[in-house]
């Protein structure tokens, strides 16, 4: 919290549901900005299924383990008073005093520390357990792509996502956050750390319903945002009508094109060969900066 205020601008690219082209936008935006020599970093925050790195020729230059602490209860010292169990709001401590059994269910532990505070006998210590990794990749010689990835079986990606965002170096002026799908906690945590959110949607009933939920969420946390409609032409007009009605800024419309879908499936960056698309993304960016740039600091 007491880091110096940087003037880096963070843009999260999100979509209520997955598969609307969120990674397609974020990777191409990242690529187009770096080609114009902007100092830009990208964080793949979709820690349950990260895949941004597949679009770049890259090299691993660093990897850090993300851990949380879980309690270890020494049953020799434990008096089986049950205080820890009472304090734990996540049911992570199982206790059977008559049998002198006390167990920590590590998967349920949120690392809140309440049990350690509760225990007056000094029976609780803590040990770290791994949640996942943050990997730094260098793209074109610059360590600019960070990937958050949780271990299989880990309940929540939030800690790993936050760790990845924290690792963005201060050499960058712009950070693109490829946000996790959904509108719950992981998305909110990612969006909350951004200055602006680009919502990517598709013009279908499912797309509209997810978009509405994302918009509702962003309004509750007061984040400025705009919308990109991907695969325009498939589906219907209801997303457009909604945007007009709600007075939400349409940043860009990308027509549906099966060739793009094929290129994407092969891990190709469309903006590498398609100058027009690259320029469109750059103007989306400039537009955002003009209207929402954090000139305040």
């Amino acid at each position, binding site marked *: 919290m007491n880091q110096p205020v940087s003037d880096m601008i963070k843009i999260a690219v999100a979509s209520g*549901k997955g598969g*609307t082209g969120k990674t397609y936008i974020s990777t191409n935006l990242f690529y187009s900005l770096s080609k114009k020599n902007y100092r830009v970093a990208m964080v793949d925050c979709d820690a349950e*299924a990260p895949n941004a790195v597949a679009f770049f020729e890259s090299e691993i230059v660093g990897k850090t383990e993300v851990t949380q602490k879980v309690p270890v209860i020494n049953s020799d010292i434990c008096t089986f008073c049950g205080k820890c169990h009472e304090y734990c709001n996540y049911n992570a401590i199982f206790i059977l005093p008559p049998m002198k059994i006390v167990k920590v269910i590590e998967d349920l532990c949120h690392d809140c*520390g309440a049990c350690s505070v509760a225990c007056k006998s000094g029976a609780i210590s803590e040990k770290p357990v791994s949640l996942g990794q943050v990997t730094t990749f260098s793209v074109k010689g610059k360590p600019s792509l960070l990937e958050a990835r949780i271990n299989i079986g880990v*309940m929540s990606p939030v800690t790993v996502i936050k760790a990845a965002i924290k690792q963005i170096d201060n050499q960058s002026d712009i950070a693109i956050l490829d946000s996790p799908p959904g509108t719950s906690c992981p998305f*909110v945590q990612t969006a909350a750390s951004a200055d602006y959110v680009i919502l990517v949607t598709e013009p279908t*009933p499912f797309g509209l319903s997810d978009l509405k939920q994302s918009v*509702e969420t962003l309004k509750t946390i007061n984040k400025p945002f705009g919308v990109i409609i991907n695969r325009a032409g*498939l589906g219907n007009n209801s997303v457009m009508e909604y945007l007009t009605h709600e007075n939400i800024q349409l940043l860009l419309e990308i027509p549906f094109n099966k060739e793009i879908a094929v290129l994407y499936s092969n891990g190709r960056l469309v903006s590498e060969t398609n100058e027009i698309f690259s320029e469109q993304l750059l103007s989306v960016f400039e537009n955002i900066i003009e209207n929402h740039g954090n000139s305040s600091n």
Partner: protein
Amino acid sequence: MEIAVISGKGGTGKSSISAAFATLNGDVVLADCDVDAANLYLLFDPFVEEEEVYIAGHKAVIDYSKCTNCKMCKDYCRFDAISLKNDKIVISEISCDGCFLCSRICPENAIRMVANDKSRMYSGSFRNGKMIYGRLAPGEENSGKLVNMVRLKAKQLSEENGMNIIILDGPPGIGCPVISTITGVSKVVIVTEPTISGLDDLKRTVGIVQKFNLLAYIIINKYDLNFSLSAQIKKWCKESNITMAGELPFDKNIVEAMVQGKSITEFNPEINISKKIKIIWNKIINQKT
């Protein structure tokens, strides 16, 4: 029999496939476990018979008339949710995990825990049986617990109405809500796509399914977008001894059907993709476990 349909990544067409499965048979119980982005009700417009409140954790709220600024809560909170702004303790609603610790240690009793009660579970009837869906309020967590609640309701409705098949449309990813969706089901259908990261995602998803010792069936959706990657996926499934349920082509009719509020098999049962879905479904439900 409970059949869960999941996918490592969102947008693989999982919900459209679940919707088709739900409209191929006689009556089924359809549970939308993607509580983060429930969608199926849009196709089926269910008649809601019951609405239940789901408590998605708590948030700490401070009572300034009691707070003496001792900052003890700030020191104890491990979620960086408490800070000092203009000499006032402020609790961030976004960061608070609802652990209750601050409310327990505050010497002035100035912190109250308030339940998040905006999430809902709906259940009712649709044209092919019973339907349940959850709706998590924006930004809530603990969706795994809401998934459990949805599944319990699904079981209850299945027993009460003698509908033996329960179809669970799962959330994307491999985290808590996915685990809640698949634990203890009879079969898991994994929908994947032939993209550069598709196989990696699939491996992770299969990993989680195997961790719980469940039977997995793979569907490659839009296989014709990339024949060579589809072939790779099939090869891997074969080598790893995982059952391929089938492949489905890319078809714009999927979107058209959605716009009309129908499943693809209702929209047009005679087109190639609909016929294929039917074959896949029969294969999945008829195979002995």
